[in-house]
């Protein structure tokens, strides 16, 4: 169930230029699914709206940077009550979040949205295609997909050789890297990496910038395989009431029947063929 909650920061560190990794202690962690997101409220009252931030991991195994320990001497940055977000500083709101330290409170709304359909990847060869700050929400998905590790192929596109989260993906998937500036992996984008390594899959899960998602949709259509893509848009309420964050859909949407689905509640994950992007 969606709720608004005051949660607590367990740790935070900058893992690449302007990209932050925050662990949060929250009751939402138990039910949150890969592909869902949180609305995080800035404390500065001049900024009203919750910032939609994707969930990177629930119950992270890695301990992170916090110092707190439980009775048994284990660090408290992992576990069932912990959510992890990895986000880019994109404006004043996320700038504020990046200054939070261990023990600080933060206002959360969530878990929001539908998440990736895990069953679509069961026993299949999958691509997890992430571009830039679209990479983090695929990590929990890589963990939870019920298919052989050898069938999980993470194709990650970066700007440069600042390869955040790459090593963590390697625990669950084969990782193929593309970097725009050619400083790591294949020079170019994720589609270049797929071509270069001659990769193949039965189903795609993707999150990233719109040009990448369009290329993914085209690729999936040509090969007649399903693709599930996670979209973003400026949001206000985050719960489906304001109709601010819509995407054009091929068929009538389930709310207004006008081919404009709400990304926050009908998505953010959509079958690629169902949306006009």
């Amino acid at each position, binding site marked *: *169930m*969606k*709720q*608004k909650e005051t949660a607590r920061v367990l740790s935070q560190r900058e893992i690449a230029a302007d990209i932050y990794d925050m662990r949060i202690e929250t009751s939402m962690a138990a039910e949150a699914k890969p592909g869902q997101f949180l609305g995080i*409220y800035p404390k500065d*009252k*001049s*900024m*009203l*709206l*919750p910032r939609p931030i994707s969930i990177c991991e629930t119950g992270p195994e890695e301990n992170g940077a916090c110092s707190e320990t439980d009775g048994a001497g284990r660090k408290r940055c992992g576990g069932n009550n912990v959510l992890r977000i990895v986000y880019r500083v994109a404006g004043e709101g996320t700038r504020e979040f990046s200054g939070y330290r261990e023990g600080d409170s933060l206002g959360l*709304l969530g878990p929001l949205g539908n998440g990736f359909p895990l069953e679509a990847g069961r026993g299949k060869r999958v691509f997890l295609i992430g571009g830039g700050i679209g990479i983090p929400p695929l990590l929990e998905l890589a963990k939870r997909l019920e298919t052989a590790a050898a069938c999980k192929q993470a194709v990650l596109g970066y700007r440069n050789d600042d390869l955040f989260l790459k090593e963590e993906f390697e625990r669950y998937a084969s990782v193929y890297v593309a970097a725009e500036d050619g400083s790591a992996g294949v020079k170019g984008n994720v589609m270049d990496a797929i071509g270069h390594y001659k990769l193949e899959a039965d189903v795609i899960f993707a999150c990233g910038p719109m040009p990448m998602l369009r290329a993914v949709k085209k690729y999936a259509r040509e090969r007649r395989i399903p693709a599930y893509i996670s979209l973003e*848009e*400026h*949001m*206000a*309420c*985050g*719960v*489906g*009431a*304001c*109709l*601010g*964050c*819509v*995407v054009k859909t091929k068929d009538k949407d389930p*709310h*207004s*029947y*006008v*081919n*404009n689905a709400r990304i926050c*509640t009908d998505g953010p994950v959509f079958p690629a063929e169902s949306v006009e992007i």
Partner: protein
Amino acid sequence: MNTEVTIAGVTLKNPVMTASGTFGSGMEYSEFVDLNQLGAVVTKGVANVPWPGNPTPRVAEVYGGMLNAIGLQNPGIDVFLERDIPFLKQYDTKIIVNICGKTVEDYIEVVERLGEESAVAMLEINVSCPNVKEGAIAFGQNADALFSITREIKRHAKQPVIMKLSPNVTDITEMAKAAEGAGADALSLINTITGMKIDIHRRKFAIANKTGGMSGPAIKPVAVRMVYQVAQAVKIPIIGMGGIACGEDAVEFMLAGASAVSVGAMNFVNPYATLEVAEGIRRYMEQYHVENVTDLIGAVS
């Protein structure tokens, strides 16, 4: 302590309602809010046929507020009657349906369809949306046009009619008087204030529609002023709104002359805002030994 207020013969258990367009038809927020605790739910605007709304981006944040240009996306009256009204009927709250249209005939069609629906307590007529090109605000920025559409709607309406006024006019009291003169049963104000935001890095408008309606705490002083001015100019009840976030804000609108209040953009900031506003009003009444909430209406001096 008595928190009941009566508007055009309709008694609300408390003066707190939802501002149209910020609460859907209550379904989305019913996960957070017990709708039975609200004086009324005012629905998102509904037209005679489905409206697709505007291109995205439709929303942007501004200092202490937000801009929106949703463009009144709605499924039309058929779906609304089949889905939204039965949902709201489950709750012990008053249903106020907000109606939008491009022509007088569009409005009348919806008014007549709703006339058959006894669960609908009142109609709120949106003649003030700044984000659609035809209809809507064209009726709300000209006193003669507002007079004629109000009179026409009153002729067909079975329920009391609330005219929702735009702040984007030279003198809002002229509009209020025109609506009252044509037989409106109540007024609600203010709708959003037309604004603009430009992304200087991309040199693009922040909203696809270029302009958007501003709402949120930053507009509250403008709204309080307009409620006060209108209260001095007309005798029909006023539903006040514009940036209400807490009980104190609601009391301020009531002291300025509002008989009831609506919570709008602050639902997005705090999904529990409506309940907290209602509770805040009760706390104020306790603190100042106010027996009837109606004693607050227009009590500023």
